[in-house]
Structures are given as structure tokens and as C-alpha cells.
């Protein structure tokens, strides 16, 4: 604490203004969450009241029931969960394999290949949208396609369409490489003397030391996978494959919006990442300052 702080009237005023400003900003930041939650529990008649009821008089769960019965929201929830978790698994495994090789193993072309992979961070997503769509659609021998990729829908409308293109992101490889570089060399030498295979050294010696890095990467990847929108919009046209983000659109028909269920669904969509964040706050904020990455 500031030892020189003397409580003169001027200081009291300054400090109060300082806190008033922060509280004001905090209210604005929290308001949408508050409003979303409050609306989701209000009966329909109270949602459109004037003046606004900031504190609800009556509580109801009907909007939550409706959210899951009006549209197949549990199906959307399942889709998003499976795809986000598969994305996490793929990135953790493939990212740490490649990151380990780039950090600790010697091979020709190591720096060049790594720089190439890293350069993909510079290619904006929008330029690969259309070609990646065509590549997925004409993947040979899947989804009714023949050997030349004609005839069927390929990998479109399957979980692969979301999982594969992001399965080993440049960020995951870079992030794991940075972490593996901080680990000591002598573990490797000792294991080699004992005759352990390269994979064994990676899997049972170095990977278990990566707990915090894997947790951080897992959280980021989960958030990214859960929040995917434009890409899902492009590769899914089967309503059964909709994600929760796309599912939110289903509550507005012909300019008529069902706000109660929509807010209930928004709460449900926001919860998983919010819960993960509150549990893993420390990792989140630390790694943002470390990598400058944005969620």
C-alpha cells in the first residue's frame, strides 16, 4: 500500500472519483450478463414492461424448458461440445508432438519448416474460406465421393469439417515449442542411455512436465472451438449439424424474436466457457500477457 498517502480532502475526493469510475465501467461490462440472466428468468409479461424491471418480481424456468423444446438445442449443445473437445484433443496431441520435435530434436530443415508453419499466422482466415470449403467437399472416398472427389458432399456436414482444418494450429505448435524449450536437456540424455525410444522420451518424460502449458492451450482451444461461427455456417447446411452459436439464430423467425427462450439459450451458450474461465483465471490472464493472444 502507498505509505505516503495522507487522507487530505483532496485525496479522498480523488480516490472516490477513481473508484466511482471503475465501478461505472464494471457496471457497463457486467450489464449484458445481468440482463441476459434476469430476462431468461422473467415471465413473458414482465419482459416487455415499461419502465424496466431491473429486479425481477417473479421467477420462472419456462424459458429454459422452451429453449430446449422449441429448437433441438440439446442436439446443438452436443455437436458443439464434441467438436470443441475433439479440437482440444487434436491440438494438444499434434501441437505437442510437433512442438517437441521443433524444440528438442535435430533434423534438416527444422528452422525453415517451423518458420513456414509460423507464417500461416499471417494468412488471414478469409482467404482460405472458399478453397478449404472446396477441399472438404471434394475429399476423395468419403461422404459419397468417388476417388476423384465427385458425387457426394465429402466431409461437409461432418464433425471433421470443423475439427480437421484447425486440428494443429500454428499457435498450438508455437506455444508448445516455447514451453518444451524451457525444459532441461539432461532428462533426455539419461533416458537415451537407458535405451528409451524417442516417442517414449516425449510421452513419458517431457509431456508430463507440460501440465500448465497443456491446460492453457486446452482452455484457449476450447474457447475457440466453442465459439466458431462463420466456418460452421459455411460447412454445415444440415440442420442436425448446427452448433450452439448457429442455434441462437433459430429463435428469430420472420422478424419475430422469442426473447425469453433466446436469453435462456444465450445463458446456456455462455456458461461452459465462463465456468472454465472462472476456474482457470490465473492461466488465462497470464498466458495472454505471455503471448498477446486474444480469445
Amino acid at each position, binding site marked *: 500500500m502507498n505509505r505516503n498517502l495522507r487522507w487530505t480532502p483532496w485525496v479522498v475526493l480523488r480516490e472516490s472519483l477513481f473508484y466511482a469510475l471503475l465501478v461505472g465501467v464494471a457496471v457497463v461490462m457486467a450489464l449484458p450478463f445481468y440482463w441476459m440472466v434476469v430476462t431468461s428468468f422473467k415471465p413473458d409479461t414482465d419482459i416487455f414492461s415499461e419502465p424496466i424491471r431491473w429486479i425481477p418480481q417473479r421467477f420462472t424456468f419456462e424459458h429454459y424448458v422452451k429453449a430446449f423444446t422449441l429448437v433441438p438445442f440439446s442436439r446443438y449443445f452436443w455437436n458443439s461440445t464434441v467438436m470443441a473437445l475433439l479440437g482440444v484433443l487434436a491440438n494438444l496431441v499434434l*501441437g505437442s508432438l510437433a512442438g517437441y520435435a521443433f524444440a528438442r530434436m535435430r533434423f534438416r530443415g527444422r528452422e525453415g519448416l517451423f518458420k513456414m508453419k509460423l507464417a500461416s499466422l499471417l494468412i488471414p482466415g478469409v482467404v482460405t474460406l472458399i478453397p478449404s470449403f472446396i477441399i472438404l467437399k471434394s475429399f476423395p472416398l468419403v461422404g459419397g465421393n468417388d476417388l476423384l472427389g465427385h458425387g457426394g458432399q465429402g466431409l461437409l456436414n461432418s464433425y471433421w469439417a470443423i475439427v480437421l482444418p484447425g486440428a494443429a494450429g500454428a499457435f498450438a505448435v508455437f506455444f508448445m515449442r516455447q514451453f518444451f524449450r524451457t525444459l532441461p536437456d539432461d532428462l533426455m540424455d539419461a533416458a537415451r542411455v537407458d535405451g528409451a525410444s524417442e516417442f517414449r522420451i516425449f510421452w513419458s518424460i517431457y509431456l508430463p512436465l507440460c501440465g500448465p502449458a497443456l491446460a492453457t492451450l486446452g482452455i484457449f482451444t476450447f474457447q475457440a472451438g466453442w465459439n466458431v461461427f462463420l466456418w460452421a455456417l459455411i460447412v454445415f447446411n444440415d440442420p442436425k449439424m448446427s452448433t450452439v452459436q448457429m442455434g441462437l439464430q433459430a429463435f428469430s423467425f420472420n422478424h419475430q424474436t422469442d426473447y425469453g427462450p433466446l436469453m435462456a439459450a444465450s445463458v446456456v451458450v455462455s456458461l461452459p466457457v465462463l465456468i472454465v474461465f472462472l476456474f482457470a483465471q490465473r492461466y488465462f490472464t497470464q498466458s495472454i500477457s505471455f503471448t498477446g493472444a486474444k480469445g
Partner: protein
Amino acid sequence: MLRNPPVAPTRAVPAPPYRSRLLRHESRMAYAFITPAMGLFLIFTLLPAVFALFLSFTNYDILSPIKWVGLANYERLLTDDLFRRGVLNVAYYALLYVPLMIALSLSLGLALNRKRPGMALFRTLFYLPAVTSSIAAATVWTWMFQKDYGVVNQALDVVGIRGPNWLASSDSAMYAIVIVTLWQGLGSNIIIYLAGLSGVPTFLYEAAALDGASPWQQFCYITVPALRTTTFFVVFMSLIGAFQLFDQAYVMTQGGPGYATTTAVYQIYSNGFTQLRMGYASAQAFVLAVAILCVSLISMRLNRDSGLG
């Protein structure tokens, strides 16, 4: 998610004597380790980037075969009023968004950097919006921006301001999108600024205070120069994000009213996937990507010492 992490200098590795059997084995295993990641990179990044250039010289609607048309798509781009509108809207958005983002995240970062009780709680509260999905956030804000029942206008009413019909009026729709994206983007940038501030040595302030520098002078001559790299990073990321604005415009306004919030990516999406003009949309995407790449490369050039180049 576009990321641009700083690159640490590579540790020097002695020239590998490839004769040794261990090293041969090691490099074989290393190639096996990187194959999945590099294979996916090849199929879903490198190949598409080249393919996009090729497609931009063709007409393709998925159903009929690809037809080579040379520069026709690019010629058409020059007279496409809608695409120009999309680009101008994005530029207008960036012009509002980026300076506001810097001002707000810097001042809040400075505020949270003071040693006062409760700062950790505020930091969490300010970061919370960054965790929510852009779609859920845009959905809730759409409801809050309603003309009569909306929270925003009723709150403005309390202080005697009559709010506009935010999303239905072409004058205010873009402001609404700026507000939502600022709300969502602030948290991570505040943290980036806090990280930057933690690297400013405190003795500089002590020395300046001894010399009689006012807080404002300290801010101008110590804080701002010390945060140059951080500010560059925030500007850079915000700009690249702004160029690719899509989610909020799609959910909140569907590009409207009129074409007031149509963005470049919105145009690419609707040309490519609702009208199946894949060749033409590729030309648009390519132009936008080159613009983004130019901004990236220029700013890296300007900031060689920032650790990004």
C-alpha cells in the same frame, strides 16, 4: 482466432553430424512427429492459399466445371459498388474502433495498475466479456438496443437523452457494432497493457518525480514511450480484427439497414456461399488478404524491435 505471438530468438544448435546413427534415427522420428501438423498445414493453409489465387481467375459455382476467365473478376471488382461499400464500411469501423480501443484500454490498464485494493476483482470483471462468444454477446446486445424495450435507451432516458432506434437506423447501426466489439475486446487489451506496464521500471518515475515532473509529464515522457511496443501490438491486432468484421454485423443487422453495416467479409460470404460465385468471391478475398498482409508487413517493418519481425 488470429494470433501473432512474439518470436523468441532461436537457440544455437551445433551443426549436426548426420553420420551418426542416433542422429539419423532422431531426425527420422522428428519428421514423424511433425508430419500430422505439417500435413494439415499443407492441406488446409498452403494449398488453399494457392488455390484461392487460382480460383480468383476463374468462374466457379460448384455445380459446373471451373472456367478460366483471366482478370475478369478483378475488372469487375473495380466497379462493384457493394464491395466498395463493404470495404469503406470496414475502414469507417476501424477508424472509430481502433482509437477508442487504444484510449479505453490504455486508461483502464493504467487505472488497474495502481496499487489499490480490489484491482484483481475489477480485472476479472473487465475481462469477462472477452470470454463470451461474439454471437451470444451480439444476441444479448441486439435485445438491449431495442428502441422501446431496450436497456440502452431506457438508461439514456434516465439522464434525459432520447436514444435512436439503434439497429434500424443507418446512422447509428455502426455505432452499435462499435460499442459491442469494444465491450468484448477491451478485456484482453487491458491485460496486454498491464503486462506492458509491468515492464516499465519504477525508478524512472521516482527520478522524474525528484526532478519535479508532473504526473501528466511522467505519462507523456515515460509511460507512452515505454508502451510503444504494446500499443503497436494492440493497434495491429485491432486493425486486423477490424478488417475481418463479420459476426456482429451478421447477427445484429444482417449487413443493414440498407448496406450500412455490410462488411468486406460479409460480401465475400454472400457472394461465395449464398450466390455461389466462388471465383468472384475468391478475388475479393484475395484483395482483402493482400491488404491485411500489407498492413502486417509494413507494421512489422516499422517495429523491428518489437519482437514481431
